[in-house]
C-alpha cells in the first residue's frame, strides 16, 4: 500500500513549484479538522463530563464528581445491567440472523438465472430505507386493527386485536424481524461483492475432482469469504449496538423497558433526563465495552490470519 507512492511528488515539485511535502497534509486538512472538531473534541468532552455532576435541572449540584458517576453505573443502577443484557441479546440475534440470511441471499442471487438483475434490485432495496421509514412500514403491518394480523384472523389464523408491539412476549421478535428486513441486504451486498472475486476455475477444478456442492461450499466459498464475513459482522455488530433510530421510534424502548438498548438508555438519560454527567459516564462505559468486544472478536476470529 505504501511503497508504490513515493515517486510522484518529486515530479510535481518541478511542475507546480509548491513544496509537495505539504500537499498531503493540505489534502487531509479539511477531513482532519472536521473530525477533530466534531468527533475527537466531543469525545473528550464526554470524558470530561463523565467526571462532573452536570444536570440542567439540578444546577446547584453541578461540579466535580470524581468517579461518582461511574460508581453509580456499576453499583447503583440495575437499569444499566438490564440495558446491557438487552443490547447483547439484540446485537447477537440480529448479526447472526442477518449473516445467515444474507449469506443465503448472496449465494442465491449470485447464480445465473432469468431476471437476476431485477431480483437483485428488489431484494436489496430495503437497504436504502431508514430506521424511521422501517418503523413506519412495520407499524402499518403490525397494527392490531388494520395490519396483517387482522387479515390473518379473518382467514382463521390467530386472534383479533393482537398487538405484537405492546406484548412483552412478542415485542423483541417483532423488532428483530423489522430490523432484519432492512439489515439482510447489507450483508448480502457485501458478501456478494466478495463472492464475485472467487475465480470460477476453482469450482470447475473441484467439480472435476468430484467435489459435490456441499464440499465446494465448505472448502472453497466459505474460506474465501472468511475475512469479509468477519469484517461485516463486526461493522454490523457495532452498528446494531449503536443505532437507535429503529427502536427509538418503533417501541420507544418499551414496553416496560423491554427493548431499551444501552445507547437508547443514554439518549433518554442525557436528552430527556437532562443528566449530562451521568449520560456521559454511561457513554464512556459503552464505548469501552464496544472497543473491548471488537478487539476480542478480531483476536478470536483471527482476522486476516491466513491471507498472508
Amino acid at each position, binding site marked *: 500500500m505504501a511503497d508504490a507512492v513515493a515517486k510522484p511528488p518529486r515530479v*510535481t515539485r518541478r511542475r507546480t513549484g509548491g513544496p509537495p511535502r505539504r500537499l498531503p497534509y493540505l489534502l487531509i486538512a479539511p477531513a482532519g479538522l472536521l473530525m477533530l472538531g*466534531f468527533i475527537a473534541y466531543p469525545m473528550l468532552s464526554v470524558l470530561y463530563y463523565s467526571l462532573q455532576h452536570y444536570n440542567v435541572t439540578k444546577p446547584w449540584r453541578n461540579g466535580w464528581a470524581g468517579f461518582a458517576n461511574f460508581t453509580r453505573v456499576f453499583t447503583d443502577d440495575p437499569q444499566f445491567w438490564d440495558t446491557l443484557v438487552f443490547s447483547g441479546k439484540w446485537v447477537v440475534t440480529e448479526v447472526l440472523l442477518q449473516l445467515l440470511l444474507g449469506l443465503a441471499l448472496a449465494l442465491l*442471487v449470485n447464480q445465473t438465472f432469468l431476471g437476476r438483475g431485477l431480483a437483485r434490485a428488489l*431484494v436489496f432495496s430495503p437497504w436504502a430505507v431508514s430506521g424511521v421509514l422501517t418503523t413506519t412500514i412495520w407499524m402499518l403491518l403490525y397494527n392490531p386493527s388494520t395490519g396483517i394480523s387482522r387479515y390473518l384472523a379473518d382467514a382463521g389464523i390467530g386472534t383479533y386485536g393482537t398487538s405484537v408491539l405492546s406484548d412483552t412476549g412478542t415485542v423483541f421478535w417483532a423488532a428483530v424481524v423489522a430490523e432484519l428486513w432492512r439489515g439482510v441486504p447489507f450483508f448480502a451486498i457485501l458478501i456478494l461483492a466478495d463472492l464475485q472475486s472467487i475465480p470460477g476455475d476453482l469450482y470447475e477444478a473441484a467439480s472435476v475432482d468430484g467435489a459435490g456442492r456441499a464440499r465446494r461450499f465448505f472448502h472453497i466459498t466459505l474460506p474465501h469469504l472468511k475475512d469479509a464475513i468477519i469484517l461485516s459482522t463486526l461493522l454490523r455488530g457495532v452498528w446494531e449496538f449503536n443505532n437507535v433510530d429503529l427502536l427509538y421510534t418503533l417501541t420507544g424502548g418499551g414496553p416496560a423497558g423491554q427493548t431499551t438498548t444501552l445507547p437508547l438508555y443514554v439518549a433518554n438519560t442525557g436528552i430527556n433526563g437532562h443528566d449530562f454527567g451521568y449520560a456521559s459516564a454511561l*457513554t464512556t462505559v459503552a464505548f469501552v465495552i464496544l472497543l473491548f468486544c471488537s478487539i476480542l472478536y478480531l483476536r478470536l476470529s483471527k482476522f486476516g490470519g491466513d491471507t498472508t
Partner: protein
Amino acid sequence: MTTALAEQGTPPAPAAAPPPAARAKRRRGLDQGVPRWQIYLPLCLYLLFTLVPFYWMLLFALRPAGSNALVPWPVTGEHFQKVWNERSFGIFFQNSMIVGVASLVMTTAVALAGGYALARFDFRAKKGFMLALLASQFIPGALMLVPLFEIFKNLQMINSLGSVVIAETVFQLPLSIILISGFIKNVPVSLEEQAWVDGCGRFRAFCAVVLPLLRPGLIAVGSFAFVHSWNHFLFALMFLSSQDKQTIPVGLNTLIGADSVDLGALAAGGVIAAVPVVIVFAFIQKWLITGFSAGAVKG
C-alpha cells in the same frame, strides 16, 4: 463440466432451447447445475418478505380512509394532499433535500481530497490518520449527541440546517475516504504521470485524467452520503427545534407518535420519504456491488 451438470440432476430446461450465448452465460455461474426450482422458490419467498411491507405502505397511502380492501382501488390522493399541505411534508421534503444534497457535496469533496492523499502519498501522519478513520467507526453518533449539541449551541447553529449537514458529513467521512482512496488506487499512477509529462499540473492532471475514471465510485459514495443523511433522524430531531426546519424522518416520527395515528397519512408520508432514496438506489444499483468490493473490503 457437462458431466457435473448431469450428475447433479439437469435443471428443468426452459421451453425453447437457450441460445448458445445464454448457455455460456449460465455456465459461468458460481455453482453450476443448481436446479431452477431451488433458485426460484427461496427467491420468491424472500421477495415476498421484501415486497409485502412496501406494498402494504402503498396500499394504505392510496386507498381511501376506512377501506379494508387489499387492492388500492379506487385510488385516492387525499392522504398525500393532507401530509403535504397540512402536515408540512412539503417543507420537510425541501429541508431534507437541502441537507441531503449539501452533505453529498461536502462529503464527496472532502473525502476526495483525503482519499487522494491516502492513495497517492506517503506521509508521516498517514498511519495515524488511517487509524483515526477506523477508530471513528466505533464512536456512536447517538452517544455524541450531548457534546455535539453544546458545540452547535456555542456556534449558534442550533436550529439551522447547517448543524445537521456538518454532523451528517462528519459521520459519513471516514467510510467515504476509505472507499474513495480504494477507487483512486485502482487508477494507475502512470496515467497521471503521463499528463504531467505533457505539461499538466498535478491538479489539472487529476481533473482531466483521474476524475473521469472515478465517476462510478464518486456516484456510489455520493449516493451513500445522500441516502444516509436523507434517512438519518437523530441529529435533525435534536438540533432542529422549530417545525419549519425539520426533515422528513422527524415528520414521520411525529405522525407515528401522534395520539391517534392517522395510518393513511403515515403511509403517504412514508411513500414521500421513500421516493428519492428509491430513485437514487435504482440509479446506483449496478455500481453498488463493485463499489463495495473495490473500496471497503480490500482497502
